[in-house]
């Protein structure tokens, strides 16, 4: 490896700094010499010429900062449920109307007048009070001869009687001509339709009204969230107040997504970084020993490695994860860590063993042995420095795949246990509301993708910089 590098160097001169050719102080000016640079300096100077690797490094540093001190800056509790803002899209400055806690709504009972018939317009329908996200109430003219009414809600103007949207309920009795809707309302336009029911069945006529729900918050909730002081709360009734900001929106339980992403980053990066650190170390030990011993011992040790590599990875990941068990109140991080380590060290061992086998035949190692170097000297002075580049690159590529594995397991519900968030479980939560609130999947997916991308690009850069030959393998 090292000899290859030096021979390559004599063939094509590396790019050099002009400064390196300046005359040395205290020497004769005609000697041009560049300072000798060691392996790490060489690798680093090569890495510096790779912009995508550098940007990736910055992104990774930013992510680490985000994970470590994110919750000191954004102090919202990731487990706090803000039920006034469920699945709300990203917002900084949302205003809401303060309304009384008790809904003042009396069902309207009005006997029908014979002459009134229904038209396919909003005529005859009218709103009661202010339509808000807490509740929307409306009433309509009684239809002659109706035995009751069916009420529907849609998010766009219905074009046909078969396309009226969600059936909300049914009023029994032709004189019950009002309806109160409090079913998961959001600050958007709603189209409410009614169909009268006659003795002979449903009418073919319907009537629709468009109502726009306004953001509203019940008084006691506003007090509980600490937005308005308790002793003068009645002053705020009917006024607009600012709701707590959620820069990345909230999830399906009204929990702040940014806070959950910070908390999830701890889980995802903890597993994603710690597991590779441990299994790369174990693989290095095992592979190093195997390669160093050689012969029969090496063959037996490597046969064992072959078997573990033959295990279908994700299948056994799931199996071991379950086998290590989760007690009550545990987050499931430890079993996942164990399973990842158990299944991942063999490929590192194989890589290192190959490298050690090559190194063993190198003349300088032979020479060192001949001069009486013992095992420790050989390992520490010759072997280890020559595999560090490979180890670093392996580690950098192992991190994104560990993050992926965690995300995958949490996504299929075999990973961390709720309510502990991880990026994968946030994606899993988000996918259920994908159609209506895409931000809940988008942000966690974005974090996973950017992290994985950054580590992959950095790994590519490191591989080029350390000039490591790796056999790419895919799971």
């Amino acid at each position, binding site marked *: 490896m090292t000899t290859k590098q030096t021979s390559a160097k004599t063939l094509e001169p590396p790019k050099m700094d002009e400064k390196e050719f300046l005359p040395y102080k205290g020497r004769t000016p005609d000697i041009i010499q560049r300072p000798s640079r060691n392996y790490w300096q060489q690798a680093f100077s090569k890495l510096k010429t790779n912009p995508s690797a550098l940007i990736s490094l910055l992104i990774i540093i930013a992510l680490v900062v985000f994970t470590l001190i994110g919750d000191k800056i954004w102090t919202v509790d990731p487990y706090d449920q803000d039920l006034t803002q469920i699945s709300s899209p990203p917002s900084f400055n949302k205003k809401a109307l303060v309304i009384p806690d008790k809904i003042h709504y009396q069902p309207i009972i009005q006997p029908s007048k014979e002459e009134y018939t229904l038209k396919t317009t909003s005529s005859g329908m009218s709103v009661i009070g202010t339509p808000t996200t807490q509740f929307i109430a409306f009433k309509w003219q009684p239809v002659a001869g109706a035995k009751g009414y069916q009420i529907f809600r849609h998010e766009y103007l219905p074009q046909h009687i078969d396309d009226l949207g969600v059936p909300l309920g049914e009023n029994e009795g032709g004189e019950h001509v009002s309806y109160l809707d409090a079913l998961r309302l959001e600050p958007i336009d709603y189209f409410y339709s009614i169909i009268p029911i006659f003795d002979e069945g449903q009418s073919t006529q319907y009537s629709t009204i468009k109502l726009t729900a306004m953001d509203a918050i019940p008084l006691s909730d506003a007090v509980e969230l600490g937005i308005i002081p308790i002793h003068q709360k009645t002053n705020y009734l009917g006024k607009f107040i600012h709701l707590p900001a959620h820069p990345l929106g909230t999830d399906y339980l009204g929990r702040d997504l940014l806070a959950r992403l910070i908390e999830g980053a701890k889980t995802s990066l903890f597993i994603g970084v710690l597991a590779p650190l441990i299994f790369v170390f174990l693989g290095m030990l095992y592979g190093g020993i195997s390669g160093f011993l050689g012969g029969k011992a090496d063959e037996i040790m490597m046969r064992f490695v*072959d078997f573990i590599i033959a295990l279908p990875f*994700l*299948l056994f990941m799931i*199996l071991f994860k379950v*086998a290590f068990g989760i007690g009550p109140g545990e987050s499931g991080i430890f079993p996942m860590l164990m399973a990842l380590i158990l299944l991942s060290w063999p490929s590192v061992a194989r890589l290192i063993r190959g490298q050690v086998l090559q190194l063993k035949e190198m003349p300088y190692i032979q020479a060192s042995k001949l001069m009486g170097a013992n095992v420790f000297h050989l390992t520490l002075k010759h072997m280890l420095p020559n595999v560090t580049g490979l180890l670093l690159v392996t580690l950098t590529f192992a991190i994104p795949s560990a993050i992926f594995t965690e995300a995958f397991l949490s*996504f299929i519900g075999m990973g961390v246990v709720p309510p502990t968030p991880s990026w994968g479980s946030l*994606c899993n939560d988000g996918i259920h509301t994908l159609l209506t609130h895409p931000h809940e999947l988008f942000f966690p997916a974005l974090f996973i993708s950017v992290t994985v991308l950054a580590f992959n690009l950095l790994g590519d850069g490191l591989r080029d910089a350390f000039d490591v030959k790796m056999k790419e393998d*895919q799971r």
Partner: protein
Amino acid sequence: MSETLHTQKTTSYPWLAYAIKRLISGVIAIWFIATATFFGMHLIPGDPLSSEKKMSPQIRKNLEARYGLDKPLLTQYGIFLKNIAKGDFGISFTQENRRVNDIIREHFPISALLGVLALIFATLGGIFLGAFAATHKNQLSDHVIMLMVILVVSVPGFVFAALSQLGIMKINDAFNTDFPIAGFSSLSHLVVPSIVLGLGTLAYLTRLMRSSLLDIESADYIRTAKAKGLSNAQIFAKHKLRNALLPVVTVLGPAVAGITTGGFVVEMIFAIPGLGKYFVEAVQQLDYTVIMGTAVFYGGFLVLTVILVDILYGWVDPRIQVVK
């Protein structure tokens, strides 16, 4: 893979000796998978009989006897191995009287069909895109393809699956079409899932194909072909493509493994009743026999695929003799 140059003829059928040797190690690997699954299973706290329904001790005892759970662990292990050798995976715990063999027979073909479609898409697409990128090196199209490859590799597969479902819905809404979003009742249900499933492998093969084509750019035989006066198209089809395809063949084995396990998520999201979906459900319900059966089946399938690809490789590339 351990191939050395063919120096001496040990038998008249060198590949046969190699195949037998590989098959024996494959059988040992399958035994290892079975053992790991068995003891992994029995590490799990609780068992499939400890359900929410209260069971009288007598019934429990009978059930344990029926499933052989009353015997010592090592005896159970022996019976398990013996049954596997006979190709019998036992009876499911949660789906009464349903044999695991039947579950595999019914649901594996669906997974296999999905996997084969994904593999075809990934291989053809990867070879084409990789070749296109290599022949347009450092042009805009090359950069665009390589950027897409990096993006595809960095985005989790389930995100693509979810987005494609959203996409189909939007298309159905916009054009009033009725393209299936989930489920499985016809081949058209598998089109989008197999594309989603194959994307990762496609990206990987594209990168491999491109670098493999660029590697042989300066090979001696290409220069010779140029010197002979062959046209660029001829050189590409006869010399470059065929040689560049060799590394692609070697990764087909691992690619099958990747696609098979990646199929779990795709099957779950698209509600395709394949074996992967069953496996995940069985793990959730601690259905011992189904878990062990599917794990051993999948493991054996993958081991055999890798062996097959290795043998195939010796056949595709005559320069490499598989004899040791």
